[in-house]
Structures are given as structure tokens and as C-alpha cells.
């Protein structure tokens, strides 16, 4: 008979110290969101717009009637196709992944648009949950990639419980609703009923690119266009899927325990 207790103790501590200290966030070599510098674009070039499978790029007309290209990370599935198609160095691969943002606008790289200041009261309320946060997850049509990474949060490497964050079986004990998937028609009802069952104050996280914009499943008879048209979203965590570290960053950002790194589409290293 195997003694699992001894086996476990002998294995020692394997949990990462990140984000309190150290750099070991388990994301080594993961290709993140592309960095985008529209000022380096070749005039009139539309390669990224043509090649992007999720229509994350669009053109904007500026004050001098000059056309420029904008990138919406809320539609980006970090597939790296734009990087390969870019004829200049305007688009480059990066290892930047923790893109969770409080405002949808912060996900857009677009010269001139400033990020909207968040409601101060809401952030005061959310910081009450610093010590203990209970999460109810709803899969509103995801590919199971996000679930796989959310399950990974509870593995010994990330050990989410050390941060005082727990998944609950019932929405009645939940402080935050974490939604994955584009919100397909058959999941709209169950999703809204789950939200209704939650006590107030309650928060909503869009986990992954799908619930932010629906991309790449925002088409056809059974696609969805994301969470925003159904529920008020407090935190958006883009990624296809977000890495466990990106999920942790988003959960900590909700309760103001970590700084937002993306502002107006620009990422702080």
C-alpha cells in the first residue's frame, strides 16, 4: 500500500512565489500578445487587417484625415499571424500576457484615446474582498481551453488558495462571476439565471478573448458577441486562452492587489 502522505511530503514545496516575489510565473517561452506601434506602419499598408482571422485590426481616421490602424486586444487570440504578415517592425511578438484590464478601452491600441477612469466607489467595494474572494465559473460556450487553465490554477504550482481565492459550487456563495466562451444562444438563459442567483455586491470577469468580443466565434447562427451586451463587465482578461498567470493577474486586479499593466493599449513591462 502506497503512503501518499509521505510521498507528498517528500516532494517538498513546488508552488511558485509569483506574484509576491520571483519571476517564475510558469509562462516561460509562451508567445503573448503582439506589440503594436502604429507610427511604424508603412503608409496605406493593410496586411494585418487582411490577415487577422478575428478582425482585431481596424482603420481609424485621425484629425488630419489621416488613416491609421488600431488594434483591439479584446478581439486578439494571440495567433501571431499578424506578426508574420507585417512588412515593417510595427507588429512584433512579445511575451506579454497579463493583459487584464478594468476598462474595455484599455485593450485598444489607438493613438489618442485615453483610458477611462474607473468608478472609484466600485473599486473601494471590490477591495473589501482582498482577503477572500469566491468565484463562480460559468462556461458560456468555450472550447475547454480556458477551463483547462482555470483548473490548472488549483494545481500545486499555482495553488490559487494561497491567495485567498476559491471556486464555489453555487452562485449563492459567489462574489464574482467568471465567464468563459462567447455566450452562445443556448447559454444566455443559464448565464443570466446564474448571475441573478448571486448576492450583491457582485462582480463579473470576462475570462478569455471569447467573452470579451465573441472572437473568433462571433459569427454564424450559434455564435456569440461576448458578455458586454448581457452583463456589466468589471475585468477583461484577453487571451486564447489566458495563461494561469494572466487569470491570477485578473483576479488580483479586481481587488486592487496588483497593478494594471495595460493602459490605452500600451503595456508596462
Amino acid at each position, binding site marked *: *500500500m*502506497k503512503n*501518499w*502522505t509521505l*510521498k*507528498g511530503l517528500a*516532494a517538498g514545496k513546488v508552488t511558485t512565489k509569483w506574484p509576491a516575489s520571483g519571476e517564475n510565473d*510558469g509562462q*516561460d*517561452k*509562451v*508567445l503573448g500578445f503582439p506589440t503594436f506601434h502604429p507610427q511604424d506602419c508603412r503608409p496605406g499598408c493593410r496586411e494585418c487587417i487582411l490577415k487577422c*482571422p478575428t478582425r482585431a485590426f481596424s482603420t481609424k481616421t485621425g484629425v488630419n484625415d489621416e488613416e491609421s490602424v488600431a488594434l483591439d486586444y479584446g478581439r486578439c*487570440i*494571440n*495567433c*501571431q*499571424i499578424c506578426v*508574420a504578415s507585417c512588412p515593417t517592425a510595427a507588429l512584433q511578438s512579445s511575451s506579454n500576457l497579463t493583459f487584464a484590464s478594468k476598462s474595455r478601452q484599455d485593450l485598444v491600441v489607438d493613438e489618442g484615446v485615453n483610458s477611462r477612469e474607473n468608478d472609484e466607489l466600485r473599486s473601494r467595494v471590490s477591495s473589501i474582498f482582498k482577503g477572500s474572494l469566491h468565484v*463562480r*465559473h*460559468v*462556461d*458560456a*460556450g*468555450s*472550447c*475547454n*481551453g*480556458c*477551463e*483547462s*487553465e482555470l483548473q*490548472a490554477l488549483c*494545481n*500545486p*504550482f*499555482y495553488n490559487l488558495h494561497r491567495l485567498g481565492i476559491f471556486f464555489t*459550487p*453555487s*452562485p449563492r456563495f459567489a462574489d464574482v462571476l467568471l465567464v468563459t*466562451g*462567447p455566450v*452562445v*444562444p*443556448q*447559454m*444566455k*438563459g*443559464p448565464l443570466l439565471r*446564474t448571475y441573478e442567483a448571486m448576492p450583491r455586491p457582485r462582480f463579473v470577469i470576462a475570462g478569455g478573448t471569447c467573452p470579451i468580443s465573441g472572437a*473568433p*466565434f462571433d459569427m*454564424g*447562427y*450559434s*455564435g456569440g458577441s461576448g458578455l458586454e451586451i448581457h452583463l456589466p463587465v468589471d475585468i477583461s482578461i484577453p487571451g*486564447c*486562452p489566458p*495563461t494561469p498567470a494572466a487569470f491570477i493577474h485578473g483576479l488580483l486586479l479586481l481587488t486592487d492587489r496588483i497593478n494594471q499593466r495595460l493602459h490605452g493599449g500600451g503595456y508596462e513591462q
Partner: protein
Amino acid sequence: MGTLVKAQVAASQLLNEARSLLEEGCRFQMAYLRYMGPVPEIVYLVDRGPNLEFLELTVRAETELPSLSDLVPLLSWYEREIMDLSDIIFTGNPEPFPLVLLEGMALTSLPFDPTSKEILQLFGDTTPPQLPEVLATQVQDLFWGPVRGDVLETGEFHFAYIGEEILHYTPRLFYKHRGIEQDLQQQDPESGVILAERVSGVGTICHGLAYCLAVEDALRLDVPRRAQLLRVILAEMERIYNNLHFFSMLSKTTTLKVGEAFGALLEERAKQINAQLTGHRFLRNVLAVGGLRRDLNVDILPTMLSNLQRDAIDYLDSLSATQSYLDRLIGTGTLSADVAFDFGATGPVAHGSGIKRDLRVHHPYSMYERLSLEIPVRTGGDALARSQVRGEALISAFDLIRQATELLEPGEIAAASPTSQPELADGLGWTEGPRGSCFYAVRIRNGLLERVKIKSASFSNWKVFPLTVHSSNMMDYAINEASFGLTIAGADR
């Protein structure tokens, strides 16, 4: 090399034809709806035997067609899906209830019908399902889902039970139906990979690769040898982390907490190796029609994988030396070979019930014919048997990666673009993923995808699973479900 032979059959001859195919030892794989111009036809895909081309049997769809479900029970769900998404009725289908579109939902027009001019939308709100009437006293009804405990995929499960005994069990899937087959229509074949990789997150390679193989078959592309071998490495990397996840979940349901943590940590290590190799923890964004998007540096693999393999073997040995764990698996969720065959079980579920079928061996693709591979088989048919074949598949994945790495030579990783494009081309691609067989059938017209049919392994195994739940007991349910290792995303599409 061809993958398909084609035959037409009249609706009146369909039953006879099916009967004679079964007598010849053929096995039906799937059925789907396709339009030839304005005319709907039903396509049956039939496996004629090892190394033989698959048979594509088409029948012109009339408003009513005879159901083949009595002869070939595995076809029942395919027929129900077609009935949901078209006007066609299969007379004699034993469960003529909604499957893909749930009760309470409706479509404004028909998804695959090219003559339909209306805007296509799915609307409504789900209402309680139609369930079989259970004739017994003191029966309790339990609905579990669609939103369940922990972090789980959406699905609703109905149990009719007395005390501990489950009399009848009905899974209600397809809440997550995304309509991906229709999304792919009119896309350019190259960009379709992005969606195919996202049909099932933990099946990125088995779906993405089956899609690429289907398009390459249609366009007659020759994938360079190096790309084929690298694809094998990707596919086996996927098998490794999925099977480690399987053992973590099986430990969880048998309340072996430390065993669960060990499995989850090994899975995490495997995902981190995936990221080191490809830049993505689920191996996404590497596959391309014709080969790979970029070359991979496999030099990092031997050390990392040999450490992981050593710890995985130690983990499996520890599990099989744990009496409390084994006791919960022995005799749980027994599936006989006959039922497994008739209802379409695939992959480890079939292997655990004594069915020795594996596409990597019987219809080899991507140079699997150059690798030596033993299909793990057990005859017990219970949760223990399913876990044992999974364990052997896990260890053999390490070995296959080693074999493929040894054969690797520097070279091209993408096929040359085709010089001419046929007006109409059909292709079939298949893979044996961690959960079993995955098929993609594509039709390309004038350079655009006209129809893509996706058959995931879990779609097949979910059809079989309830048969092992009826008459079992509540306490064993979670263990039995974990031993099937099912996903919902791929089945729902």
C-alpha cells in the same frame, strides 16, 4: 494516395446496403448532411477495414429516410442532429427528440441550405428536456447542471434514481453548440485552421491536424517529411498532458487528494514543455495547411521528457499500488465489447473493452506507419481497464516522440502551393487523439470551403457512456465519468 471511394445508393435500398456492409465487417463512422447545389444528400462514412480507403456512401435526401439506428445504433445521434438542422425526418429513429438544438430553441432558417435566403439565427430560451417516463414508485429526479460545481464544462445531467441506484441517466449536452461547421463555410481553407484548433482546446492538435490532412487530401498537397514527423511529436505531446490530466481527475474522484495533486503537477509540467516547444501551452498556432507555420527546435525535448517520463512512471506505479484507488475502479462502469462496437466507442474506451482499433495503426497518417506502436488493449471493460490502457498510451507517447525525433532530418516544413485548383474537391482527414478518433470531411469549391463535417472522439463516447450508468450507483458515477475522460466542447462544436 486516395482516402475515399464513393458510392450512391437509392433511399429504398439504404437498409439493404447497410446490412450487407455490416456483414462484410465494415463499420459506420458518421453521417452528415451536405448539399449538392440545391439538393440535400446524406453522407455516410464507412470504415471498410485496415489500410483500405474509406467508403463515402451518399443517398439523395428525401423528406423521409429510413433510420439506420436499429442496425447501427451509433448513427442515432447523427440522425438526430440532421433532423434538428434540416427538414429531413428519419423514420424509426428510436429517440426522435431534439439533440443539438435544445427544447425551447428555434432557427429562423436552415443552416446548410444554400437556397435559404433568410437571415439565419438561433433564438429562444432553453426549457426542460423530454425525458423517458420511468415506471416505478419512489423514483427521485435529480437535474445536475447546466452550471455545475468547480470549474467544469457546461452540460446537464438527469438522474432517475431510487436510493443509491440509478435507474436511468440522460446527459443533455449541446448547450455549448457554437455552430462551427457552418462558421467554416465560405472560409478560405488556410485560415480555417485557426477555428479547427479551437473546436476543442485540449484537442487542438487532433482537431487541427485532422482538418489540415483533410484539406491537404482535397488539394493533393504533399507535406514534407520533416513537417509530418514534427506533427507526430505535437500529437503525442497532446496525448501526454491529456493523459496526465486523466489520472489527476481519476485520483480526484476516488478521493486520493495527494494523487490528484501529483497528476495535476505533472500535467502542468507537460504544458510548460509544450510552451517551450511551440510558444503555446496547448500547442496552438503551429499547424498550417501543407505543413507547419514555423520549424520547431526539438533539441530541448529529450532531457525534459525523460525527466517527465520517469516521474510519470513512478506516479502510475504508485497509483497501481494503492488498494483504495483500485477498489473503486474494479467493476465500475462495465462496457461490453459488443455494446462498445455497436454504439461507436472509440479510443481508450474501446481499447478498455477489448476492441483493438487505432487509426495510427489501421489507417496510418503523417508517417505513423514508420513508427512502431503497440495498441494497448484490456478486456475488462471497467474503469480499471480504461485507466490501464490510458497509462500505456501515456508511456508509449514518450516512446513515439523519441522514434519520431530519431527520424528527423533538416528540411522543408511546408508543401509547395498547388499549381492549379480543381473546381470541386473532397477530402477526408483523421487522427487518433488522446480520446479516440477524430474525422474531418471537407468539400472545397472554387478555393473556398463549402462544407466541413467534424466528428470528435467525445461525440462518439458520450453516446456510449449512459449505457454504463443505467443500473449503476450514485457513488460510482463521478469515477465512471472520469474513467471515460470525456470533453464537451468537441462534442458540442
